[in-house]
């Protein structure tokens, strides 16, 4: 963990970058308690302050998540183009609630506010990749493609 942290000067202004890097390095996409403690130590901050900062921002998770994170946009432009029924279809298909992870640990389903790709609404991201002009079929196809690439 230290080698991730030492890429930045030991100054609080770099904490968001440090948290991003530590989370990205973790296969289950979350901040381990040890990671938070390491940041606190490196920046000479109270652990409570590090946790308070991390929990403010929606991109960080303190709980283990799936290997892949599905973020379905629910902002007005996507909502207008049918995101609500897509969310129902998504949670049905993966048999998981929003915010939870599938039993096999493959996918966490999250909703997100605007992804800035409204020209192709409704849209979702799987990890860093954007999928637009979604229909139920295209959404499932994208999920299965990720599943296949995992095997």
């Amino acid at each position, binding site marked *: 963990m230290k080698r991730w942290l030492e890429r930045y000067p030991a*100054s*609080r*202004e*770099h*904490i*968001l*970058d440090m*948290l*991003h890097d530590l989370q990205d390095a973790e296969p289950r996409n979350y901040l381990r308690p040890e990671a938070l403690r390491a940041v606190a130590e490196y920046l000479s901050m109270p652990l409570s302050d590090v946790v*308070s*900062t991390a929990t*403010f*921002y*929606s*991109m*960080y998770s303190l709980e283990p998540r799936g290997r892949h994170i599905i973020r379905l946009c*629910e*902002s*007005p*432009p996507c*909502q*207008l*183009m049918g995101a*609500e029924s897509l969310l129902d279809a998504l949670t049905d298909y993966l048999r998981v609630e929003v915010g939870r992870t599938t039993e096999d640990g493959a996918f966490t389903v999250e909703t*997100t*506010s*605007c*992804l*800035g*790709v*409204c*020209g*192709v*609404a409704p849209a979702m*991201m799987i990890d*860093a990749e954007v999928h637009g002009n979604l229909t139920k079929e295209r959404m499932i196809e994208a999920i299965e493609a990720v599943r296949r690439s995992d095997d």
Partner: protein
Amino acid sequence: MTSGARSPRIVLQNNGVIDPYSLDQAIAVGAYEAMAKIVGEKISPAAVIDIVKASKLRGRGGAGFPTGLKWSFTAAGDPVYIVCNADEGEPGTFKDRLILEGDPHRLIEGIMIAGYAVGARRGYVYIRGEYALSIERMQHAIEAARAAGLLGEDIFDSDFSFDIEIKRGAGAYVCGEETALIESIEGKRGYPRLKPPYPGTVGLWSKPTVVNNVETLANVPPILLNGADWFRSFGTEACPGTKVYTILGHVEKPGLAEAEMGTTLQTIIDEHGGGVKDAKRFKGALIGGAAGAFVCSDCLDKPMDFDGLQEISAVLGSGAILVLSEDASIVDMLDGILTFFQHESCGQCAPGRAGTPALGRILKRIRSGEGRAGDLEQMLRVARTINATALCPLDQSVLLPVESALKHFRGEFEALISG
């Protein structure tokens, strides 16, 4: 174009024309010429501010504050910071992303000129964490500019030294508010500060700081190069120049449009959006994102600029236009907007923390057919109270969608209540 309406490209001039990874191509289309002119002709910082003031450029982040005036209000200090707000999170808005990804050197030059004008040696670009490609391209461009000596010490052999650093957000809409953004750069929770003092006097690390939106800064190099009169030949008297709109929802061709300030909604929909989808009837539009207002067909022929929309109790905001055909339910749309506010309200002030969920609960009740007499008045009372008492513009702006939806489409809500 099917009519005589002009749609000049100022901000998006090079988008799609150049390779955003190539500094040479950017230079071939004029990048850094404005900065070279300032240095070559020894135009003083005060004179740069005067040119921007004379251009009447107004902030494109939503509030429309005169940019030159903001610069002139910035206190002298050591150091002074310039911050580019690229925390674009307003639902339906992605204009800044396309500038970051399509013409990053334009933005770097805009930040440099702003820095020169206010006496900053250091600039920050705060980009929302979800914009991975924007971060990558901007980082690449900054490094290329640095390697070419366009950023760093003694730029163009002058005594002006300047550098830029990227800051990544981590998912918090409220950080688009300038003081929350400053807190976030400092590595804290993105809680907005009480104003005054404004960032121009007490900003980043308590130093004088200018915060400008991406699109605003992208307008600066061409203004310096071509002059204030040239800029004022576009748009309206009070709001010169162009606006980059995102036109979305029930239109044939959703996407991006740069049009002169003062262009009517009808023209934007017809000429840039390809008309209402499936030739349906136009019902209304949500302008300015979730923190924006609903308008009805009465608004179609109104010139859109910061002032023109204010006259009809709407706002231009970030320039997001969500077109709603006869098929759209305003009740459902407002429900989505209130969900957004509940999620993004930062929790610092009580009106935002408790007020936005209260609004959401009433509307959920109405939407499920269990609305009560007096519910609409109650929603307005709650929204007005939030507007009057919330700490920052995020929660204050919830009044806009609530009030405008109930003003123009009240019947839809009443039909559900009287069921």
